[in-house]
């Protein structure tokens, strides 16, 4: 218990002291069929660890990138919407940004052997 509490305290202290910069990349599909006279734009916003919402500049395509500062391991979430002039879709739900490629999954151990040692009479 004490060990766990100590670890938790250390983790909290470390989190407060460290911050990394991340390249945040997002994209989505706009299923809307627009009229020729429409001029759709696309908006995104992000938040770190469910904190303050940070709006991002509108883009001409449903995609974008941003530089985000966050503590290692802190979830970075993105929410987006489609905009056409004064008309806008509802904001999407929050989507957590993931690593661009998965962590390497270790293979199964090989050469497993079992040794039985007599410990009693």
């Amino acid at each position, binding site marked *: 218990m004490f060990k766990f509490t100590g670890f938790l305290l250390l983790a909290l*202290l*470390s989190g407060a*002291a*460290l911050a*990394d*910069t*991340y*390249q*945040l*990349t*997002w*994209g*989505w*599909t*706009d*299923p*809307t*069929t*627009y*009229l020729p*006279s*429409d001029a*759709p734009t696309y908006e995104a916003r992000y938040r770190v660890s469910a904190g303050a919402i940070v709006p991002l500049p509108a883009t001409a395509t*449903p995609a974008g990138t941003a*530089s*985000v500062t966050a503590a*290692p*391991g*802190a*979830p*970075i*979430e*993105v929410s*987006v*919407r*489609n*905009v*056409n*002039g*004064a*008309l*806008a*879709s*509802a904001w*999407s739900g929050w*989507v*957590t*940004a*993931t*690593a*661009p*490629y*998965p*962590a390497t*999954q*270790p293979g*199964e*151990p090989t050469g497993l052997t079992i040794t039985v040692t007599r410990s009693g009479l």
Partner: protein
Amino acid sequence: MVRRAALVALLALATAAGASRLTTFEWGAAPGWPAGTTVELCGNDVCETGITTTQHTLDVPVEPGGVIQGRARAHSGEQSSSWVELAQTWPASPIGIRATQERIAMAISASALTTGGSGTNGTGFTTASVSPGSNRLLLLGVGFSGVGAYASGSFPSCTISGNGLTWELVASQVSWAEGANWYNITRVYRAMGASPSSGAITITFGATADSAGWTLLELDGVNTGGTNGSAAVVQSASAEATSGSNVTATATLGAFASAANATVGIVSSANGGGTAVSHTPGTGFTELSDGGAEFTYMSGQWRSDNDTTVNNTSTGQFIAVIGIEVADAGGGPAGASLVTPANRFAHMLVR
């Protein structure tokens, strides 16, 4: 007569989802409209008449992704303007949202926190107070000028304390060795901590120094792994030289582990007469520090990229150069999670 041009309809607003069909239209009223002019407004064939303001909200039947067709005309007595129309699509909700995050490799930066020296004989020396940053690589170059010990091959010890950090030796280089006479020994120490304290660094030698010098470099954007900066220091090499004047020494490092790694040089030099000297870093290096006292003048130099040739020229007569490869913080993913299938060895992975 109500002029057609007087009525300009603009679709202005659709409210939030849930009441999403509530749509506000607004338009301009021409100055020439007779008193009592009203507007008839329709949105997707839901119409209202007798509107006297220049904006109005209708409950328009439309779904996300659909088109809002608006039209309006003005009435005054028996006369009406032509319809003014507009059409605008209400965007559907986004689908297929994807987002990735990738830690950006920070470029290494370097600065000197303090440089100094003392010509007063002693075993203990203290730097000015410094405030190292969190998780920065600290490289402390320490020069010791003494007499006699070189002949025995036994050099006085040196311990470093300060800033709540553990200082570990990276490399050392003896220079100006004249048998049983004078010699200098240059050492480089490393340290790193998440929360270093502010304060002076104390340098304690195991024998009396005739003079001592020091220079403290701080590097950011480095690999913070290991302990006390061990992952940030990839390799080191050293060299020394003696000459009548303007002496140059070159430390040659091995091949660098990464193109993003930086090169640091710690230099110590002096004149046999104890007069002041200055340093000129090798091509491509930036001098971060230059100072000291009597027989121990120190300099720090660096470049943000690779250079296996770490060289420096002193106006003095003997010099020691210690070159160091510093590892950058590295890029790649962060926060990636291991997706493990249910497998019978799971317990082995988590222990």
